[in-house]
C-alpha cells in the first residue's frame, strides 16, 4: 500500500516538475525542475523493482548529464534579456497548436495502453542479473553503445575545441 502511495506521489512530482521545466523562461530554473523530475522517476524505478536503474538514473542522468547542461548554460552566460525574450515567446498563439498535436498523440498512446492490464512485479531485478544479461545476450548492444559514446566523444571534442580556439 505504501509503495502505491509513494508511486502516485512520485508520479505527480515528476509530471508537475516536468511541466514546470518546460515552461520556465530561465534555463537554470528549468534545469532544476528537470532534475527534480528525474529524481522522481528514479523513485518510481526503485518502487517497481529496478534499484540498479534508479541508481543509474540519479548518478548519470541527474548527476552527470544535467551537470553538463549547467556547465554549458553557465559558459554561455545567458542574462536577464534572454529570460525576458523567452517569456515573451510563451504565448498561447505559439503553444496552442502544438498542444493540440500533443494531446492528439497522447490520446492515441492512451488508447494503445488502455488494453494493457496487470501489475508490475515487486520482485527486484538485481544488478547482478542486469550485468549477466548485459554481457551475455546483449554484448553486441554494449559494443554498439561503446561506439556511439566514442562518436559522441569525438564529436563533442571537435565542436568544443573549435569553440575554444576561435574564442582566443
Amino acid at each position, binding site marked *: 500500500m505504501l509503495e*502505491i502511495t509513494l508511486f502516485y506521489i512520485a*508520479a505527480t512530482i*515528476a*509530471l508537475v516538475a*516536468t511541466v514546470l*521545466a*518546460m515552461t520556465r523562461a530561465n*534555463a537554470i530554473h*528549468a534545469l532544476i525542475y*528537470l532534475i527534480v*523530475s*528525474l529524481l522522481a*522517476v528514479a523513485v*518510481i*524505478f526503485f518502487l*517497481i*523493482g*529496478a534499484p*540498479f*536503474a534508479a541508481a*543509474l538514473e540519479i548518478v*548519470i542522468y541527474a548527476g552527470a*548529464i544535467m551537470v*553538463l*547542461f549547467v556547465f*554549458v548554460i553557465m559558459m*554561455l552566460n*545567458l542574462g536577464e534579456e534572454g529570460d525576458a525574450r523567452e517569456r515573451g515567446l510563451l504565448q498561447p498563439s505559439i*503553444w496552442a497548436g*502544438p*498542444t493540440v*498535436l*500533443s*494531446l492528439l*498523440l*497522447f490520446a492515441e*498512446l*492512451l488508447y494503445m495502453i488502455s488494453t*494493457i*492490464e*496487470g*501489475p*508490475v*512485479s515487486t*520482485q527486484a*531485478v538485481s544488478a547482478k542479473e*542486469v550485468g549477466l544479461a*548485459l554481457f551475455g545476450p*546483449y554484448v553486441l*548492444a554494449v559494443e554498439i*553503445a561503446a561506439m*556511439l*559514446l566514442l562518436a*559522441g566523444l569525438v*564529436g*563533442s571534442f571537435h*565542436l*568544443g575545441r*573549435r*569553440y575554444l580556439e576561435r574564442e582566443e
Partner: protein
Amino acid sequence: MEGLNIPLNHILLVSTLLFSIGMLGLMIRRNIIFILMSLEVMLNAAALAFVAAGAHWGQPDGQIIFMLILTVAAAEVAVGLGLVLQVQRRFKTLDMDSANRMRG
C-alpha cells in the same frame, strides 16, 4: 495481493504523459537548450516505459534498454551541447528560428 502492486498501465500512463509534455516542449520552445532538455524528457519517458515493462515480466531486459537509452542520451547531449556552443558563437543567439541558414 494483486491490489497491492502498482498497475502497469498507470506507470505507462505516466510515461505517456511525460513523453507528450516533452514533445510539447520540443514544439513550443525556440531556445536550443530547452529543445535539448525536451529531448531528454522524451528519452526519459521512453526509458520509464521500458523499465516498467521489464518489471512487469520480472526480466532484466528493460533495464538493459534503459542503459542503452542512457548511453544515447549522454552521447546526444555531448554533441548537442557542443553544437549549442557553436550556434551561440556564430549567431550570437540560441534561437533556432534565427539560426536557420544552412550555410554558416
